[in-house]
């Protein structure tokens, strides 16, 4: 007998939107993002702090305020604000007084960025958006010192689920980052035709010649006709990531491509914290429910035990429950839709769902025999 819980049918489109925004979902991905964004924020603040420690702040040289009324703090107070930002970013990452720490981090980063038009870059705008989403979401109830203290005091844990709207908004913003960038290139004939990328390579040809790249690679990169195709690939990659992240069938491919994309950008251009932030933000695309995949292992098998330990250490999105089965049991993964995988296919599928190993394991899922089977032919679905 199969029990199927269908979503309630909303009375109207507005009601459907309200149900979507108010649906209580796991905040685990935002909690993990909070942990990861702390170091990114520190990296972002570093040049401002280094300048301040060297006795120079933004208004010692050209700056352009967004508004005349925007407050310029006295020099020592500005330094103190940056120091508060650092402390807050560390506390946010650790999850100590999380709500206050995240709000303070957002406040410091926002104040500092809006001091001058010269401060704002796309990667910093994205950081601001991510911090804003974290500040409005209750993302400190797990993976946090707050949760640990609560447990130590013997108080009951807080509900780990919360209305989904901050997560949906952050997903929208993340998609906009890729979509807007791709669209602007798509509608620019110079970009889509390859002129921009080729010309940029020509400008830095001397640096390429001095790089460890082999001569044939430099020659290929400097070839105009190569860019006719490469530029289109870049544009379509950005658009694919923007769109592909939304659908379950393409999401893992989009995540995999996005990681490649950001690594390529990081090694080829100076983009401040963009690569780190964008890769960290990919965790928000995990389905916001937890412990709904079951891994059964044979506790007598050392390799199974190692897999269980790996899951314990690396399952940052809390996707798995690990159970000990009868002796001789192969590693068995039951997915949230009931699909079963066993043996190496199960191991590959498990690794493909752990943030740190996903990029390496995902390609193995296209190999023959890697597809799971359904226990009763019922394909689960409906997850977004």
């Amino acid at each position: 007998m199969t029990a199927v819980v269908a979503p309630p049918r909303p009375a109207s489109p507005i009601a459907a939107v309200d149900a979507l925004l108010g649906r209580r979902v796991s905040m685990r991905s935002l909690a993990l993002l909070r942990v990861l964004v702390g170091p990114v924020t520190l990296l972002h603040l570093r040049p401002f702090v280094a300048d301040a420690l060297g006795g120079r702040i933004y208004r010692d040289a050209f700056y352009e305020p967004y508004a005349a009324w925007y407050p310029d703090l006295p020099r020592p107070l500005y330094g103190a604000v940056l120091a508060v930002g650092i402390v807050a970013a560390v506390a946010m990452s650790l999850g100590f007084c999380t709500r206050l720490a995240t709000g303070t981090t957002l406040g410091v980063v926002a104040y500092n960025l809006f001091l001058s038009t010269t401060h704002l870059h796309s990667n910093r705008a994205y950081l601001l958006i991510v911090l804003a989403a974290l500040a409005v979401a209750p993302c400190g109830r797990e993976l946090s010192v707050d949760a640990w203290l609560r447990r130590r005091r013997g108080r009951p844990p807080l509900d780990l689920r919360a209305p989904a709207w901050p997560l949906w908004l952050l997903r929208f913003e993340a998609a906009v980052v890729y979509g807007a960038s791709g669209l602007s290139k798509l509608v620019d004939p110079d970009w889509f035709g390859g002129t921009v990328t080729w010309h940029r390579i020509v400008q830095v040809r001397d640096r390429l010649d001095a790089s460890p790249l082999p001569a044939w690679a430099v020659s290929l990169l400097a070839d105009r006709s190569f860019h006719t195709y490469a530029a289109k690939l870049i544009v379509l990659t950005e658009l694919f990531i923007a769109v592909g992240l939304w659908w379950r069938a393409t999401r893992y491919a989009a995540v995999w491509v996005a990681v490649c994309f950001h690594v390529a950008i990081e090694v080829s251009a100076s983009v401040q914290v963009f690569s780190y932030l964008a890769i960290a933000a990919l965790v928000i695309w995990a389905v916001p429910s937890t412990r709904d995949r079951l891994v059964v292992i044979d506790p007598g098998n050392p390799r199974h035990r190692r897999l269980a330990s790996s899951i314990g250490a690396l399952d940052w999105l809390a996707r798995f429950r690990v159970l000990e089965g009868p002796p001789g049991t192969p590693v068995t993964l039951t997915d949230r839709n009931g699909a079963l995988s066993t043996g190496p296919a199960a191991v590959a599928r498990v690794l493909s769902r752990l943030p740190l190993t996903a990029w390496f394991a995902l390609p193995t899922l296209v190999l023959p025999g890697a597809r799971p089977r359904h226990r009763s032919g019922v394909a689960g679905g409906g997850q977004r």
Partner: protein
Amino acid sequence: MDEAYRIGGARWWIPEPGVSSWWPHPCHRLGVDTRARVIGRRLVVALVVVVQLALVARGYWSAHKEFAFQMFPESSTWQAEIVRVTSDGARVSVTRPWDGYQWAELVVGRGLGRPEVRHHADAGLDNQLAFLDAALDYVADNTPRDDETRYLEARVTTWHNTDPPEVTVLRSDDRPEAT
């Protein structure tokens, strides 16, 4: 359903096919949200979406493209000869220090510190020219010891991608300090 595992005295059931933890049990969908909260949430989300899309659209005509996420937009380059035009009509390059001021100390970042060198306009030419224009005004307004410069002028040569060069002249505000 007969597939269950016993651990520590508790029975764990493997997930049912077709049953998702994604949709909460009906008893969890009680109307705990007030109407004000529901409407407020709806408005906040709509506002963010509309503002974000507006900022993306604004990026197509504004020199500054905040939150428009137009990354690596051009391969364009620029170079500028910046002079101080003094009250007696002399045109003095800012590459020479004056009254204890140096251009490279007054204007740092955004590739503006050495305008005489050809630079990549990494956020586009419009953006670069807007910054240079603002930098001229900043220097004009923040060099109080200088009592001879009437205004600063930049003769900017721009190369939009692979297009032929174009020349633009930017000028700071007039300085009342000039005698």
